């Protein structure tokens, strides 16, 4: 469903991705791990066009996104990127809820304004989403009246309201207090169990092991190793994977 071909990405002079190839099937759950600064976030951001790349091709559902060498993409490129974004939901580490809107308004904003869904219908859908994540009582609250865990769950609901075919999570629990990590992971697990194609960058190794179909190890912009969770965590083949896991599991 998502095909990445020969992806090259530069940050100024720094050549981060030197030709990444990677395919994701519909319904797959891929977890990206690796040291800080290895390129996990950048990879996810390239897929939905929040970062431009200089060489290669990314296709989501056969909508092809080509390399963009200019400072600003052309109008047509922008439209292509937008089409991809409509199919891929994103959840950020910092939640990024809209602070001037209530929870409900956050959720119905894009469905009503982008998909032109009638607002009664959008509200109805939003409330049932909120019910699924157990915070329908907070529909009329503003984001800063919510706990971090609640905010992240609302952010997930907001992305789901656009009925995406795949979801990208970039360290969804990294800025949460430990006692709230569980409730967010539970929502993601639930989503995965319904068959959502899911890409997650995370430092939660237990969670990765439990949920992933495939684990992808990044280091210095390279994909070092790809494998089933048991293989990666118990029997890694590559030296760089071993070093990384040793360091992180000791902590």
């Amino acid at each position: 469903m998502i095909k990445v071909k020969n992806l090259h990405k530069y940050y100024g002079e720094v050549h981060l991705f030197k030709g990444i190839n990677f395919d994701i099937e519909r319904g797959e759950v891929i977890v990206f791990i690796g040291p800080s600064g290895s390129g996990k976030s950048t990879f996810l951001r390239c897929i939905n066009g929040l970062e431009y790349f200089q060489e290669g091709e990314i296709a989501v559902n056969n909508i092809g996104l080509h390399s963009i060498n200019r400072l600003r993409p052309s109008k047509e490129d922008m439209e292509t990127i937008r089409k991809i974004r409509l199919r891929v939901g994103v959840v950020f580490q910092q939640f990024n809820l809209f602070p001037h809107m209530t929870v409900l308004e956050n959720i119905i904003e894009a469905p009503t304004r982008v998909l032109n869904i009638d607002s009664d219908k959008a509200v109805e859908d939003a409330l049932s989403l909120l019910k699924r994540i157990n915070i329908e009582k907070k529909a009329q609250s503003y984001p800063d009246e919510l706990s971090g865990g609640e905010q992240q769950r609302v952010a997930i609901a907001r992305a789901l309201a656009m009925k995406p075919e795949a979801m990208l999570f970039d360290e969804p629990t990294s800025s949460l207090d430990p006692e709230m990590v569980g409730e967010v992971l539970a929502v993601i697990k639930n989503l995965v169990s319904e068959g959502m194609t899911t890409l997650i960058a995370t430092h939660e190794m237990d969670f990765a092991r439990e949920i992933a179909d495939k684990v992808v190890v990044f280091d210095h912009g390279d994909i070092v190793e790809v494998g089933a969770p048991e293989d990666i965590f118990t029997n890694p083949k590559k030296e760089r994977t071993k070093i990384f896991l040793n360091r992180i599991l000791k902590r």
Partner: protein
Amino acid sequence: MKKILRILSLLTVLIIILYWTVPSKSDISPIEKIKKRGYLLWGSDAEGGAPYVFPDPKNPSKLIGFEVDLANAIARELGVEARQSQNAWDSLLPALKRGDFDIAMNGIEITAQREAEVLFSMPYYIYTEQLVVRKNDTQIKNINDLKGKKVGTLSGAVAQDILMKIGGVDVKVYSGQVEPYEDLAIGRLDAVLLDLPIAAYYAKPNPKLKYTGHPVGEGFYGIAIKKENKEFKNKIDEIFIKLLKSGELKKIYKKWDMWDKTQENLFQQIKTSEGFVSLQESKKAPLYTFFPNLLKGAGITILISVSSMALAITLGLILTVLRIYGRTPLSSVAAAYIEIYRGTPLLIQLYILYYGLPNIGISLNPLTAAFIGLGMNYAAYESELYRAGINAVPKGQMEAALSLGMSQSLAVKRIIMPQAIRIAFPGITNDFIALFKDSSLVSVIAMVELTKTYSILAATTLRFFELGLIVAFLYFAMSYPLSLLARRLEEKLMGHKR
């Protein structure tokens, strides 16, 4: 797309307003034009004061003065009415040249320099310069005693040249004719040299001051007419000769206590008349007689501030969006606009707009020029406030909006701007109050708002103190509710976010 449409429609409205206010040019002769119009438009500065043109202390919305009488007589001879057009004295000739009025008549001395710019009618008054000193002064007997003394006069007046020629005189130049005498009375000056009619009105009744020496110099006041209107000048001269022969001119001068031997050179007959309003009288008029004028000035101040702030807020928003999100040529144009408008004085911008644009065929009326001038200037500042607001919105907000499939323009409109405006709001209300007070600057382009009304009235009556307090109170009474309202709105906006 919607945004572009909105911008376009706004521009269209602006252009329509512009066209509306550009007077149509035609080739018919000035006399025919005046007759068709039904009134003669004459330019002068009521702030210059008595006895030339000034508000009647008994009824300040009416102008009186010997030049008002003259204008009425000329208009009558042309078969029309006379209407005064208020203009700063310094810029009477530029305004005449751009066609703001048919003639300029306001104690304008005929000089070679001015004759190079405009036509003058035959002289309508022979003025001399009168030296005035404090009553107890015994040193200064005539202008030859002025070396090393502080002497006040008017900027651009012939008296200034005379003083300069003496040499060694510390010449203090004023822009109004009241202030030199005030400063002389309290000892800031040693003497004042000004046209006799001015001295007659302002110095003669003042118990602290006296005339000294004989009048010096001799020159002529003339009516200024556009260079190309030779035929019109001849007509005005014809009318003058008629008024002269009938004795009407002399009657007018008598009425204003301006008749002296010198005038014999121009006229022969002498008759008397009544109706002269003395300074003493205007000093005693009850304050309420000035209220209608002051309130009208306040109304104009409000009109100008509110309309130009509305322009500033909208134009500022457009500039910001173009600057931050626009593609190269547009964003550079917006950035240049902002830097130029912030980097040059508002006063210069107003001058260019009002006196400069006519050179390339665009002539705005004062109200439009004030609205556009203030609005365009403040737009640059509002734009910077919006930009600071936008920069204060976390980057993640735009990313979240885009990743939900919103277009950039929708994201700006729905997600970024509402947050940015909340952040910029206190600065914007602050600017509104500043603009409100800055609106007094537009008096330089012949807009008679509250401050200008004050200076005209105060110059005629010398009641700077009482009128000043009233005007200050009026400003406060307008700006204070405004800042209360702004605070209320601010709380409401913030309440929504918290």
